């Protein structure tokens, strides 16, 4: 009945395959069109799920057995429940919009075919990750997105910095990949299954405290590295080296949301460890606050957005940690829409300013690019969670308000609320600097085609309107989201009555305070004495520099030791010296016999024959 689920990841995978095999014949234009069509087909299949069978009960499709050794059995099984349906909708549809936007954005760029290949593979990997019902299959998708992010961040590899940024992203997320794999090993050692749907009931039935603690910490590190949470966030600001569309894909539709998704998926595991969820909540709120403060001092338009991604992901983790995973997932959806919008719009802004990323050189763009201005403003509204008319007001503020009700939620609430002030601050600082004020003379005329305008318009509409799925409790209007997810994720704590009203009011006040802060910061920045001169904030609390100074050094030392000791002395001396010279000596000895004198060959043949006969006679049979 659901034997067509495999089509969802298969379409982008097929696109990548065709691109790899026949891309040369197709030419870059058709590579791009093909690559754009594939996620569109996937999203049509996803739409069919929404309209057709629904996900009660969850859809399952068992494709084949990947491997089976003893009681170790891995099936390639795709599973779509409510949570993964949200994820695959984002990955396929927002992914499709980003592909569409890339058509004009990257036209004539070098490596277009390579770009579309990795873009398709990226979406396919994310779809496998979200649809996997098996931790090992999930890990396959996890690694695929890691690989593609590396390749796409260093897309413009001819500049050494970009290649370095790609390597940094790869190595940092690699740490998390390794710990995730170790966590999976631990779970298998204890429970002898990797199928998520049968693992979680086992965990609940037979908890093994020490092992679960170790496994959940290891898996959490994996999620943190992938989702760029403190202190593994250092790869994300540097990943801005890639094209803006890649940033949009990494930050909105794929990759960084995988960590949050993993946490929601394995919530039963984390809940089985006492105190774990509280730690997740506090760390998430801390990351949200920390990254928002860094965003306030950045001058690169994309770095502002990079820190905002870290911060928004912090809110999602906070939502998971306080026991409101459905709100976390809601914010993931909202964030996916407005962050894809903001990144693609900022890509257009950068093109208009001739590859200049510095927002201090920009200004007054609203006069020349009204369409860009209104769509960008919609994204900024959503990022800042402007009350009533932005989606994040209904998702992010709901998380912050819910944390107030939870026992021990004081610290997350305080951090989250002050983070919200800073968020609105850096969001509107960015908007005021780029679009308001005097027009900058560095601006170049640029005409956006329909391929760029349509995705921006769709995402802008979603950034404003998608929050109306779930009004705050007690308000008139639809309350679809939380109840729809309740069978899967349970109901989050919801403030009602006077308390709820007050919390909502405080959240709205925080946003307006932040807008004022942003206006003030933008004015100071224009005057040349802005927050970007605070090295502490601009460098991200010096964390990146400190980590780069402390952590890689022992590894470099170890590598030098291995090269000097093992490689030079051992392998080179033995293999190159001993083996090579030995072979050369024996070869020259043998070559001496090959002298071309047929009579001598005859003699040696007969001597050999005699020797063999002698051996046979003297051998005791």
């Amino acid at each position, binding site marked *: 009945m659901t034997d067509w689920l495999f089509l969802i990841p298969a379409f982008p995978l097929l696109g990548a395959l065709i691109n790899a095999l026949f891309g040369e014949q197709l030419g870059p234009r058709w590579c791009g069109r093909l690559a754009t069509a594939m996620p569109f087909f996937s999203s049509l299949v996803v739409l069919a799920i929404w309209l057709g069978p629904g996900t009660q009960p969850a859809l399952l499709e068992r494709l084949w057995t990947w491997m089976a050794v003893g009681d170790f059995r891995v099936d390639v099984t795709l599973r779509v429940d409510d949570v993964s349906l949200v994820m695959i909708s984002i990955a396929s549809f927002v992914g499709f919009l980003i592909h569409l936007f890339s058509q004009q954005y990257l036209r004539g760029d070098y490596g277009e075919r390579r770009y579309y290949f990795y873009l398709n593979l990226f979406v396919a990997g994310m779809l496998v990750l979200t649809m996997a019902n098996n931790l090992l299959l999930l890990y396959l998708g996890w690694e695929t997105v890691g690989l593609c992010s590396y390749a796409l961040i260093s897309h413009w590899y001819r500049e050494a910095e970009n290649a370095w940024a790609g390597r940094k992203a790869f190595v940092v997320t690699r740490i998390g990949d390794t710990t995730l794999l170790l966590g999976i090993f631990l779970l298998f050692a204890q429970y002898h299954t990797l199928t998520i749907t049968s693992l979680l009931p086992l965990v609940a039935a037979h908890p093994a405290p020490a092992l679960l603690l170790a496994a959940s910490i290891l898996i959490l590190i994996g999620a943190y590295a992938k989702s760029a949470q403190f202190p593994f966030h250092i790869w994300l600001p540097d990943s801005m080296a890639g094209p803006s569309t890649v940033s949009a894909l990494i930050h909105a539709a794929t990759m960084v949301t995988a960590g949050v998704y993993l946490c929601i998926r394995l919530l039963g595991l984390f809940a089985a460890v006492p105190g774990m969820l509280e730690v997740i909540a506090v760390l998430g709120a801390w990351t949200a606050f920390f990254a928002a403060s860094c965003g306030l001092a950045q001058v690169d338009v994309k770095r502002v957005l990079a820190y905002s991604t870290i911060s928004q992901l912090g809110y999602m983790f906070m939502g998971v940690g306080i026991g409101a995973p459905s709100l976390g997932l809601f914010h993931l959806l909202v964030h996916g829409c407005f962050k894809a919008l903001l990144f693609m719009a900022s890509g257009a802004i950068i093109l208009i300013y001739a590859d200049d990323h510095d927002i201090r050189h920009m200004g007054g763009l609203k006069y020349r690019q009204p369409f860009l201005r209104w769509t960008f403003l919609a994204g900024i509204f959503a990022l800042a969670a402007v009350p009533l008319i932005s989606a994040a007001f209904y998702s992010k503020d709901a998380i912050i308000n819910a944390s107030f009700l939870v026992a021990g939620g004081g610290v997350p609430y305080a951090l989250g609320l002050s983070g919200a002030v800073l968020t609105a601050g850096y969001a509107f600082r960015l908007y005021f600097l780029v679009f308001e004020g005097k027009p900058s003379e560095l601006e170049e005329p640029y005409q956006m085609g329909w391929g760029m305008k349509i995705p921006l318009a769709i995402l802008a509409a979603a950034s404003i309107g998608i929050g109306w799925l779930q009004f705050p409790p007690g308000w008139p209007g639809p309350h679809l989201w939380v109840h729809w997810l309740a069978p899967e994720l349970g109901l989050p704590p919801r403030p009602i009555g006077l308390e709820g009203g007050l919390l909502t009011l405080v959240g709205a006040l925080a946003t307006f305070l932040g807008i004022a802060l942003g206006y003030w910061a933008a004015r100071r920045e224009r005057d040349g004495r802005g927050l970007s001169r605070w090295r502490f904030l601009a460098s991200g609390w010096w964390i990146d520099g400190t980590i780069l100074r402390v952590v890689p050094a022992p590894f470099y030392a170890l590598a030098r030791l291995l090269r000097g000791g093992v490689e030079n002395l051992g392998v080179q001396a033995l293999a190159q010296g001993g083996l090579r010279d030995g072979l050369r000596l024996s070869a020259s000895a043998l070559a001496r016999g*090959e*002298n*071309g*004198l*047929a*009579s001598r060959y*005859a003699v040696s043949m007969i001597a050999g024959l005699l020797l063999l006969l002698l051996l046979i006679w003297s051998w005791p049979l």
Partner: protein
Amino acid sequence: MIEIALAAAALLFFVGLTLILLRRSLVFWLLGAELLFNAALLVALAGGARWHAISGQVLALFIMALSGAALAPSLALLLRVRRELGTLNVDGLRLLREREEQDD
């Protein structure tokens, strides 16, 4: 009876071997090879007579056909070698060895 035949075969074999070992001319090598064939043929015949088996004679016929068939192209090659290189000394046929190694 068979001992005599085997002794004759051994003698033939030894003569053939000696020819190949001592002479350098291709003609003598071919002669020697024919003698080796004939020694084997004699053994097959003698064995067939001793055990009253038809396969001995069959084998002998095969060996005759084989040595005849081998001899024809060998003689053709020999003529060709004589014409191209002007010598029949087997140690002169060293065209395939590497040039620089001019040892012995």
